[in-house]
């Protein structure tokens, strides 16, 4: 590691006030410390926010069908929350199927949504080429690299790194809103707008600005007892998704009244398949409708030889998730 200053913030306002160039927040540290050890992240100052105001940002609160979750809630706590498991299982599933118990006990949900890609060329500084790590240096993955785990949706000719997280797919599917305390005061953004496509600037992953502190996630309508997260991966646990789907359904008889679809493991950012949802809404959930929706969801895919299978797998994952969600009660 390189030397850095460490301090513990007492209040959210204090944390934001202490921000500046080279300063980063430290929540559970499972992404940050990992990347510091790899020399990928080089903060000069870490502001530890894990204990802000005696747990003020560690909460899960229902108000009717609206749900608000404190940004510093651990993955484990939210995954285990009885009401969340019953009323919005997709949120709980996506956390349960992520990482390991040890990591879930440490990690906070704000840190979780901001985790960085697992692209090997990003995580190893001995590779000269990586536009995300060193803007303008090129992309080792696209230049003859190993790409089995890379994205097929939302890519650019500068970067095809996969957004690796699971929970973000559930948040995007349920139209979550991110509550932020910034140096200029509080503001809110749609979770769907927080991450930005790599385009020509893959080093910029979110619209968050220096000092922006996530304080909570809110979901106006979180009552989706018929929802789930399906994660397809190389082993049964403790592996990132090759393809995943966060699904939520409301049926009126055999007709889809509302459907939500977040896709993971296949895209550069948390991915909402809006057009595919639209094609299903108001119709039956049969194989042909699902097949059509899957075509729509992956219509814009770009692939390499090694990750081409993700288009087929992504479609199958999405269809299977919707069928299994349809079989749930609710």
């Amino acid at each position: 590691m390189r030397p850095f200053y460490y301090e513990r913030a007492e209040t959210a306002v204090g944390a934001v006030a202490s921000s500046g160039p080279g300063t980063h927040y430290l929540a559970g540290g499972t992404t940050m410390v990992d990347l510091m050890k790899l020399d990928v992240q080089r903060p000069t100052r870490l502001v530890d926010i894990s204990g802000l105001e005696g747990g003020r940002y560690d909460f899960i609160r229902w108000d009717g069908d609206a749900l608000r979750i404190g940004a510093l809630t651990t993955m484990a706590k939210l995954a285990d929350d009885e009401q969340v498991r019953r009323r919005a299982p997709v949120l709980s599933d996506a956390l349960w199927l992520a990482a390991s118990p040890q990591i879930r006990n440490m990690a906070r949900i704000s840190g979780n949504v901001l985790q960085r890609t697992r692209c090997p060329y990003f995580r190893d500084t001995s590779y000269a080429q990586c536009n995300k790590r060193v803007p303008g240096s090129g992309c080792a993955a696209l230049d003859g690299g190993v790409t089995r785990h890379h994205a097929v949706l939302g890519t650019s000719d500068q970067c095809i790194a996969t957004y690796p997280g699971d929970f973000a797919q559930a948040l995007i599917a349920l139209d979550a809103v991110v509550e932020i305390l910034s140096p200029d005061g509080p503001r809110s953004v749609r979770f769907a707008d927080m991450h930005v496509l790599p385009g020509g600037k893959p080093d910029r992953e979110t619209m968050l600005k220096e000092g922006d502190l996530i304080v909570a996630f809110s979901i106006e309508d979180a009552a989706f007892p018929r929802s789930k997260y399906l994660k397809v991966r190389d082993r049964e646990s403790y592996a990132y998704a090759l393809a995943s789907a966060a699904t939520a359904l409301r049926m009126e008889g055999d007709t889809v009244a509302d459907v939500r679809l977040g896709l993971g493991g296949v895209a550069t950012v948390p991915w909402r398949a809006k057009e595919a949802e639209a094609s299903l809404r108001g119709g039956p959930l049969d194989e042909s409708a699902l097949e059509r929706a899957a075509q729509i969801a992956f219509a814009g895919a770009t692939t390499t030889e090694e990750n081409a299978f993700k288009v087929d797998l992504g479609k199958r994952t999405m269809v299977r998730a919707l069928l299994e969600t349809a079989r749930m009660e609710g």
Partner: protein
Amino acid sequence: MAQDYTPVPASKDNMGKPVARYEALQKVTGAKIYAEDLPVPGRPAYAWMVTSGIAKGRITAIDDTEARAIPGVQLIVTHENVGQLGKLETFANGGLAITEVGPLAGPEVHHDGQPVALIVADTFEAAREASYKLAISYAEESPTATFGDAGATEKALGDINPEYEPIRFNDAEAALANSAHTIDAEYRTPIQHHNPIELFSTTAYWEGGRLVLHEPSQYVWGLKHSAADLMQVDADNVRVKSPFVGGAFGSKGAVTHRTALAALAAKRLGRPVKLVAMRDQGFTHSGHRQETRQSVRLGCDANGRLTGYDHRSWEFTARTTPYYNGGLDKCAAMYAFDAVRTDEYVVQGDRNVPTFMRSPAEVPTIYALEAAMNELAAEAGIDPVEFRKINDTRVNPVNGAPYTSRSLNQCLDAVADSFGWTGRDPRPGSMREGDWLIGWGCSMAMYPTQMGPSTARLIVRRNGSALIEVAAHDVGTGCYTIAAQAAGERLGIDPQRIEVRMGDSRLPPGPISGGSISTASVTSAVANACDRIVEELGLSSDASTDERAAAMAGMSEPEIEVLGRWTPPGMGEDALQAMYDGGVRITGGNMDERTMFAFGAEMVEVRVNERTREIRVPRIHGAFAAGHIMNPRTAHSQYLGGLIWGIGSALHEATEIDHKRARYTNDNIAEYLIPVNADIGEVNIVMVPERDDEINVLGVKGIGELANVGTPAAITDAIWHATGTRIRDLPVRLEKLL
């Protein structure tokens, strides 16, 4: 389904007691028993090994000005100032060096991750920080990564080893041509890394002119001699301590660059130096299982009797050091073939040198043979268990040497019984549950019975306790436990009252812990020591254990000490001397007069999701027969680990390589996948009693590398049975089934 815990396995005929591990308490309480835990005299300095980020080229300049300026940095060693180190031979030439290229030997870079500098500082953090400031410039060249890449060069084994002879047993071509059914297939196996949890560490310090090394090792006497040669001191002035090893699987047998680098730094600084290769560095530091291609043609007649067998294999190895495993002679001994032809090749590229990894030759070659056996059985319409029985043999068909014992058929019956194989519908796709397709598959497991010379010092005391000292190694297998059992059973002493010391080069030499030779070799030397004690006590060799115990209690001296020595049948005294000199001598398996192998049979059930194609293994059963089982409890653990390893080797494990840069990309244990708990369901092990009095004193066959051989063939056959798709390229990842 899976139980929460495994009951202690019962002893059957020709098995010892299922006693708990000697170090069980220490292990479950996290006691400091590993090399890196040992105390050092004084404040150590910490070394960081800087490794190349390119696979081929040369260092053109090194600027260490900024690195030296970091407070606490004490020493920076590069090829420019390393000085003269001694030269070690590689395995092929009778030495233990992992590579022909010495540590920091020059500016040339031969592979990714080659150590290019050592930074030593007062703290680990300072050494690490200095590593960011050390500016190394390279002239980079385009490297060759693996099979099929530009610049890969092929050689027949005969071209690198004049003693190698391919098998030409009868006319395989004609036999194949006259077969009723034939298979012609190519199988591929991937790069794999051992990834022991205990990292590759070395702590070195000098006490006057004497060097002490704390380094996890599978051969402390070999390491002692190698370190002496490297540092150009007398071997008597080197001591290696490695009391327990936290996993090795072959990766801690060879001598890597870090030993000399740590010893050199400790010498220059006059204080202990601690050096640990990080997890990613471990991928290029201490070898791997090399990727292979196996081309198999196999035929049988209308009754399922095997005719011709033609097997060719290609192993990918290093340009600098053409390490290879070979092993097709063992495949040729497995069944009653009429005619066999083998050819073996290496293909070289710009890679680090491979090394032994658990059943090095057997894993890829037997996978190919067993997969072909399953395919041919299906082709001939014969149940694969029956097919193996039809082709059982009592001799190695190539040279006619009889097996000393062979219980493959008993194992097949035992596993079929435990698994419930009968009634299997042979048609692919015939079983399903909900959205999951189900398939069953089977294979043989085998491993040559091998041994090496060993000594063992035994001290028995009038108070009824004893001490065994031998520089053997416990890599997690239970070697301390069985050494105590071997003496306890012979002398009538409770093993709990026998202290055991291993893993220290000051002790009398024991063999390399490789080739599954430890139990057979060490217990034979311990048995020899017990015989000497009996003699010293003036008892006849057939005295009962009660008489022996009584004689010890009545000893006039408080203790007697003897040195047991054992050399395997057919090996001369010079083999023992070679071990004293740090050499490796192993015999067994296919021999001119006798054929010595342990066998097993495995059956698995796989489930494949109909839509998304994930492959899961809810149950696996194995039956094994391996002569006298010293301890069914530690044996069970070896078989269990082997079967789980086999599942990983079929479905999970593979090191990914960047073809353009010849670099491993998943060099961490988040992305280098091995099975986790959730991947393992029911594992059932049947130990089939077997007796073999011809192999060694106690009739012991090595079992550490038995259970993971063949498993991938059982799994790929089960996948075919579930889906109708034959996958011949490991590991089987779901995209191969889409």
